[in-house]
């Protein structure tokens, strides 16, 4: 069994952390580029290799058609859900996508869970390099306001990355866990989490008990499509309007230029958290240039409406917790977008209290995930997290009206039971439609799943099947059904309305293993090629040296032939063939190597007195 880690699978950046028992706190693991942040960017190389993180981010500029960012926005969503997204993000989505979106990267198509799994694989390899051991289990964080389909998609991504997902933890709650280690506050805490693409607000109560601290979430709310990305998009839109008005240049059809501009604006946004002004200079197609100085005031003008959008969920969460903003004893800030002075100022004004910003807002969620991973892994705990389900669970009844059976903000795990009967004689099945959301009509809620309940043939009203709906500790729905007459359980085949079914996941797992093999082959070919280069160079050097004088003509010819044969194949992909020819050359040069060895030895001995040998 390998190691367990905590992973923050973010919209913009992803991180992996572990619990370091030596220091008694969680730590983020640094990747090969010297940062703990792995940009959530995936690119498909022309040779089929998947590139993730920093190198993929660079390809956003050079190969935008083969590269994707912010894929988290597509997790667990259908084609009709993402129409707004498509106006703002350069996602190339297959028009035939139905329940699961397919995104095109170069010549291949991937589902969002597959793309996310590449990011998870990358983080897994960071951790494996760090530990020098395999990593096979993880706690992964999700926005608190993620619905069932989005959670399932995240769990599927974990599975596809070869990770057993021990638990999905809500991001704001994870942040509270990470903070809880540093201080021992009691009472009410609000966590304001404005990340790259999602916004969450959670209200928690910290309770001290004889056994340890309980982190009880009272309520949660949010918007799964609101975050730093939106600030970038608003800045980009403003800049494009200006470019069009002043230079008459339209950037449609120039994805490279748009990415270049976006990158420069994001850099300016970051700079404006500390500075009052930031210069943005980008060359435009056709020789013109965008050279502007952004002021903090200008950024705040763009930012203010985005901040306002966070206030609706904040007020709802407080109302659901039956609390006033002033009652919060601590306010915790999470997510890169909370670095902007405007957000800090306005949050402080609203709660009447300076928010906590001691922990790095980019890392705090991953750190909390590592804490939860340790709780699950070690079995030793001094804290317990009681989280809630963000959305009410309901079933569609007559006339499309929803009967809510588990209210939002119920502590999870939670369950509800309902009994169903046949409405016609000998009716043998009923289709149950499960939805999530607060609206009265099923068509206004999020469709989660459909399944068929099997009934024994009976007169109308005679059959009785009891269904148990259960939301587990990860916030994911499970369904059980039992015939009340026989007491027999029946298997319920839940067809998710959005997302992958088991067969699709199995197929993808097989494919991913195939690709893993392909990746392996590519790596082997590169290594064999390098080795071929160095042995060829060494042989040439040997042949030019003194020792070569000891070789017979036949030996010389054999070496020459082996070298030619290796040169012939070394550029190819068949690493086994390259290795075979390397071995052949090694054999052919055995005599030469021996002669060289002798010569070296001879030279060494010659320079020394006999007694020293």
């Amino acid at each position, binding site marked *: 069994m390998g190691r367990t880690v905590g992973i923050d699978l973010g919209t913009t950046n992803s991180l992996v952390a572990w619990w370091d028992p030596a220091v008694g706190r969680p730590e983020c693991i640094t990747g090969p580029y010297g940062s703990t942040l792995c940009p959530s960017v995936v690119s498909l190389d022309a040779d089929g290799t998947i590139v993730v993180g920093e190198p993929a981010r660079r390809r956003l500029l050079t190969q935008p058609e083969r590269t994707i960012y912010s894929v988290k926005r597509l997790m667990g969503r259908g084609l009709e859900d993402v129409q707004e997204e498509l106006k703002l993000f350069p996602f190339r989505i297959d028009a035939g996508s139905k329940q699961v979106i397919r995104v095109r990267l170069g010549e291949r198509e991937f589902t969002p869970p597959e793309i996310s799994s590449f990011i998870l694989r990358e983080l897994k390899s960071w951790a494996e390099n760090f530990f020098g051991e395999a990593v096979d289990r993880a706690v992964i964080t999700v926005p608190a306001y993620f619905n069932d389909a989005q959670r399932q998609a995240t769990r599927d991504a974990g599975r596809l990355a070869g990770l057993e997902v*021990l*638990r999905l933890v809500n991001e704001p709650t994870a942040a509270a866990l990470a903070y809880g280690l540093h201080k021992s506050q009691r009472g009410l805490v609000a966590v304001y989490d404005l990340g790259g693409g999602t916004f969450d607000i959670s209200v928690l109560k910290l*309770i001290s*008990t004889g*056994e*340890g601290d*309980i982190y009880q979430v009272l309520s949660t709310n949010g918007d799964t499509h609101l975050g730093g990305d939106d600030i970038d998009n608003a800045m980009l839109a403003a800049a494009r309007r200006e470019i069009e008005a002043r230079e008459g240049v339209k950037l449609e059809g120039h994805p490279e230029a748009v990415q270049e501009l976006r990158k420069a604006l994001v850099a300016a946004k970051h700079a404006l958290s500390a500075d009052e002004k930031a210069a943005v200079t980008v060359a435009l197609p056709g020789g013109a240039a965008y050279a502007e100085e952004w002021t903090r005031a200008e950024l705040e003008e763009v930012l203010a409406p985005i901040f306002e959008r966070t206030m609706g969920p904040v007020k709802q969460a407080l109302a659901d917790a039956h609390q006033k903003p002033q009652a919060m004893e601590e306010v915790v800030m999470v997510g890169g977008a909370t670095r902007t002075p405007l957000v800090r100022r306005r949050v402080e004004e609203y709660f009447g209290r300076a928010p906590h910003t001691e922990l790095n807002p980019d890392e705090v969620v991953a750190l909390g995930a590592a804490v939860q991973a340790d*709780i*699950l*892994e070690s*079995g030793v*705990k001094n804290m*317990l*997290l*009681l989280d809630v389900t963000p959305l009410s669970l309901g*079933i*569609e*009844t*007559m006339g499309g009206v929803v*009967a809510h059976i588990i*209210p939002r903000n*119920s*502590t*999870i*795990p*939670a*369950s*509800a039971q*309902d*009994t*169903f*009967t*046949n*409405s016609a004689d000998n009716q043998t099945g*009923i289709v*149950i*439609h499960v939805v999530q959301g607060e609206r009265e009509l099923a068509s206004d809620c999020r469709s989660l799943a459909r399944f068929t309940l099997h009934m024994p043939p009976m007169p109308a*009203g005679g059959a*009785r099947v009891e269904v148990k709906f*259960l*939301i*587990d*500790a990860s916030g994911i729905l499970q369904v059980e059904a039992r015939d009340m007459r026989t007491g027999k359980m029946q298997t319920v085949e839940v067809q998710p309305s959005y997302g992958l079914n088991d067969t699709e996941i199995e197929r993808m797992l097989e494919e991913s293993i195939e690709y893993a093999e392909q990746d392996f082959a590519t790596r082997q070919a590169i290594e064999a090629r390098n080795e071929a280069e160095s042995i060829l160079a060494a042989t040439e050097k040997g042949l030019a040296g003194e020792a070569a004088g000891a070789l017979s003509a036949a030996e010389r010819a054999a070496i020459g032939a082996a070298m030619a044969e290796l040169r012939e194949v070394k550029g190819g992909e068949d690493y086994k063939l390259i290795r075979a020819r390397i071995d052949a050359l090694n054999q052919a040069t055995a005599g030469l190597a021996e002669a060289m060895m002798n010569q070296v030895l001879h030279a060494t001995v010659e320079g020394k007195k006999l007694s020293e040998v």
Partner: protein
Amino acid sequence: MNRAEQGGASPAVAETAAQCWKCGKAGGDGHFCAACGAIQRLPRGTDHFQFFGLPRKLWMAMEELERRYHQLSWKLHPDNFARGTEEEQEMSLERGSQLNDAYRVLREPVARVEYLLALEGMRKEGTTKQQAPPELLEEVFELNESLDELRSSREGNQHAAEMTALRRRLEEAARAFEEKLAEVDEQLMAAAREWDATVDAGDAAAGRAALGKMNEILNRRSYIRNLVRGVNEELAK
């Protein structure tokens, strides 16, 4: 879709564990085996009162309930069984979810009454829900008139002063109904005490009467609540 009418007392299952599935010994608090400490399967039909080891009574010491909830959370939460067998994980999910469900219902006095009525097969909705309770008929009639006036005045070009007066009248009416709601809640608590007394006395017939009374009060309560909500929504427009 056919949801079967809920009702009929569910078969009460004794909460005391018969025999531990793991060590075969008997005894324990129902949640865990006294001998080996293994978590026990949740018997079907265990109700929320039984789950907490409480009598089927409505008065509860809330602090004690919360303390017990935290204590059981600590022991039953799936976190504790992440390294356990699949069976233990399933049992912890069953018990852990009922713990949360039970606490959610029992900590709210009205939800607690509704739950008890459902358990006793006495919750009957619909018949009186849509109708004004007779003693409120007149006030409800007036309120509806004012509401209509407000709606139609919004379309027409009503005088600002008249609008303000109308709004004030509605706000007052809403306040009056909110006071009624407090009265109703008191009636409900009185009936709840009656029920508890019948449980102590073992008087089943008087118990049925108390339940019937609570059902009626609940229907009146939800009628008034909807009324107040409707007025507030209209005023917020």
